[in-house]
């Protein structure tokens, strides 16, 4: 057992209001430079929808992630045999048109236009070429189902449901969508790291954050192709790839990442997970129907003495282990089992987990009267008739395994029924307890889930381990060793060419 730590994330989708505040705070800090205008390290998609870049989930098109072959895994995009001939031209690399061409408006024209008969206008101009352009796509072009029949119908996850269900999704009374905020998953088996010919990408040992060394990156762009979530971006101006860095400079100073900190719906949780690094390869090669549970088993119990001993052996301090024990992510993923990883069938073992959305609840038309449920108890029993098909959610979060999604949603619903019985009282407590029992949970657990979902404080949501640089480096090494080698940063301007 090789105990390693990972700063992991949980996004509670029931709480996401789709306001894009996370995206904006990230953009203001990291991607407001030339060449990065089109990048959104954090973006929020509407599901069903095609996402950003368009149809990123379609791995027939982009060849992202791994495929299992004979008990092991292989990159879909560039195997060792194929990478050299493809180095001159990547056959599956997304281009700017798959994302969108960034633009701004000529606001100065509103002030500087010469006097005339017509109103001056602010024309849209490309942020790449500076030429006037017609806006045809954007990072959230099908936001809130905008243009759904044209865009959202291309959502690759819709393949998981029947034609009838697809039709029903478009029916007005069944119309449904939810938001899907995405950042880099900081995977355990990152395809981007494995694909980099130069070896510029790496995973940090202490916290598992995946980074790109800008001085080693040579613009081969394999990471862009290999990442199935398309969260590694190519800076067209500097000729280097860039990606979400989980705001590690903030984490190292004890602050939550910008997108976490700014989240209006407070959907985001951050904390440590311990995992067994020895078993990553085996888990990644498992068939789709076993992989979700196997990844959960890969995550270790931070209270287990054996795990604690392993953690200490790998240089983790007592304080660090205490933070792992407090981790809200551990509770969501491992104890309560209500947070699931996105598209585990890509086999990168993502470490960002989602609590699937329950809303809208079972809306239906009963005798021409629209109601969420005719009787409160039915909230639970009608659960199979959810407006968003279970197969669709399972395709997104359970590698297609529907019973796992059912288990999760049942538990979330049982918590709701229980709290409703407690606070509103229109459901009999006996019914509520019965549903808790059926959902494999208890009163105490339901209460804990409720508190962590609805009432958590800032410090409960973000249990940021002591990653301070002075602890990560100086505590173990003589700071004088690192004089002249850390902390001086970049001295050259990030521009193209010499």
């Amino acid at each position, binding site marked *: 057992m090789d105990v390693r730590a990972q700063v992991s994330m949980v996004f509670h989708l029931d709480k996401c209001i789709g306001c894009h505040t996370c995206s904006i705070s990230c953009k203001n800090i990291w991607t407001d430079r030339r060449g990065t205008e089109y990048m959104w390290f954090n973006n929020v998609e509407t599901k069903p929808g095609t996402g950003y870049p368009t149809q990123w989930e379609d791995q027939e098109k982009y060849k992202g992630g791994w495929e299992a072959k004979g008990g092991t895994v292989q990159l879909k995009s560039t195997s060792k045999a194929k990478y050299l001939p493809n180095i001159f031209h990547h056959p599956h690399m997304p281009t*700017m048109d798959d994302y969108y061409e960034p633009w701004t408006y000529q606001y100065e024209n509103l002030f500087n236009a010469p006097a005339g008969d017509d109103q001056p206008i602010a024309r849209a101009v490309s942020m790449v070429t500076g030429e006037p352009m017609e806006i045809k796509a954007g990072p959230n072009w099908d936001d809130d189902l905008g243009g759904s029949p044209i865009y959202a119908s291309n959502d690759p996850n819709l393949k998981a449901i029947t034609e009838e269900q697809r039709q029903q999704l478009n029916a007005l009374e069944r119309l449904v969508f939810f938001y899907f905020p995405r950042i880099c998953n900081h995977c355990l088996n990152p395809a981007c790291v494995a694909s*980099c010919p130069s070896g510029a990408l790496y995973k940090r040992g202490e916290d598992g954050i995946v980074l790109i060394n800008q001085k080693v990156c*040579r613009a081969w762009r394999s990471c862009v192709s290999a990442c199935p979530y398309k969260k590694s971006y190519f800076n067209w101006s500097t000729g280097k790839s860039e990606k979400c860095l989980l705001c590690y400079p903030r984490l190292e100073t004890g602050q939550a990442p910008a997108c976490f900190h700014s989240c209006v719906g407070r959907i985001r949780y951050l904390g440590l997970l311990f995992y067994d690094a020895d078993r990553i390869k085996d888990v990644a090669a498992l068939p789709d129907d076993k992989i979700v549970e196997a990844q959960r088993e890969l995550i270790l119990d931070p209270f287990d003495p054996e795990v604690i001993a392993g953690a200490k052996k790998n*240089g983790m301090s007592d304080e660090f282990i205490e933070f792992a024990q407090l981790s809200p992510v551990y509770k969501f993923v491992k104890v309560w089992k209500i947070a699931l990883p996105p598209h585990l069938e890509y086999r990168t073992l993502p470490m960002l987990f989602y609590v699937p959305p329950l809303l809208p609840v079972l809306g239906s038309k009963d005798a021409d009267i629209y109601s969420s449920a005719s009787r409160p108890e039915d909230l639970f029993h009608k659960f199979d008739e959810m407006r968003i098909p279970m197969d669709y959610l399972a395709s997104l979060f359970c590698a297609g395994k529907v019973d796992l999604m059912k288990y999760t949603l049942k538990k979330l619903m049982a918590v709701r029924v229980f709290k409703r019985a407690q606070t509103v009282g229109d459901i009999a407590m006996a019914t509520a307890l019965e549903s808790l029992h059926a959902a494999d949970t208890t009163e105490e657990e339901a209460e804990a889930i409720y508190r962590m979902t609805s009432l958590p404080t800032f410090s409960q949501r973000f249990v940021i381990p002591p990653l301070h640089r002075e602890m990560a480096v100086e505590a173990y090494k003589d700071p004088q060793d690192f004089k002249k080698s850390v902390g001086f940063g970049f001295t050259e301007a990030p521009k193209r*060419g010499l």
Partner: protein
Amino acid sequence: MHSLLAQTDSLLVNLDEVLFVGLPYTAIVLFLYATIRRYVARPYSYSSYSSQFLENRKLFYASAPWHFGILALFFGHLIGFLIPSGVLWWNSVPARLYVIELSAMIFAVLALVGLVGALHRRFTNSRIRVVTTKMDVIIIVLLLIQVLSGIWIALFHRWGTSWFAGVMAPYLWSLFKFSPDITAVREMPFAIKLHVVGAFLILAVFPFTRLVHLLVLPLSYMWRLPQQVIWNRQRKTRQT
């Protein structure tokens, strides 16, 4: 009058020495110094500066033929330089000579097609124009001159593969032995002289262009393990 002619003559002799002795040594020194200095002092600037992200389709028809063509030609020249006797032996049978000359011509045409395509793409696509630097233009023009003069030589000064072994290989070897002998090169036709000068000019500007990506061709990827983990704490890198 007579003395003026003699003066011009000696000037030309000096020019030959500048071009075939001075330039090569300057180019090699500049190449070594500037590539190493750039690698050490400005590692961030070492990149292939791919523009596939901005334009995809035309790049395929430019980049693929160019790279395959020029790589084959480069290794062809290298073999001619390293084992001239082997090339002469191979060319001693006419059929074999035609095979090598014809395949070299095919690669040259591939390189030319790719280069013209790249030039066209660079100047007609507004997105690509934005990421075009001065050095990009200089190097692409130099390479174009080089490929065109090479094709010209292959067509009108036959058979290059054979006389390269007899004339150019000894000249290049003499440079490496620090006893430059330009008697043979001096008598060469203009196109060949142009090709030689072009080669050393490319070598001289090489460190200042995007061509440095050649030096960081990631061959080690072939045998490296997929995952790479770096610890700050113990300063160690581990591949798994």
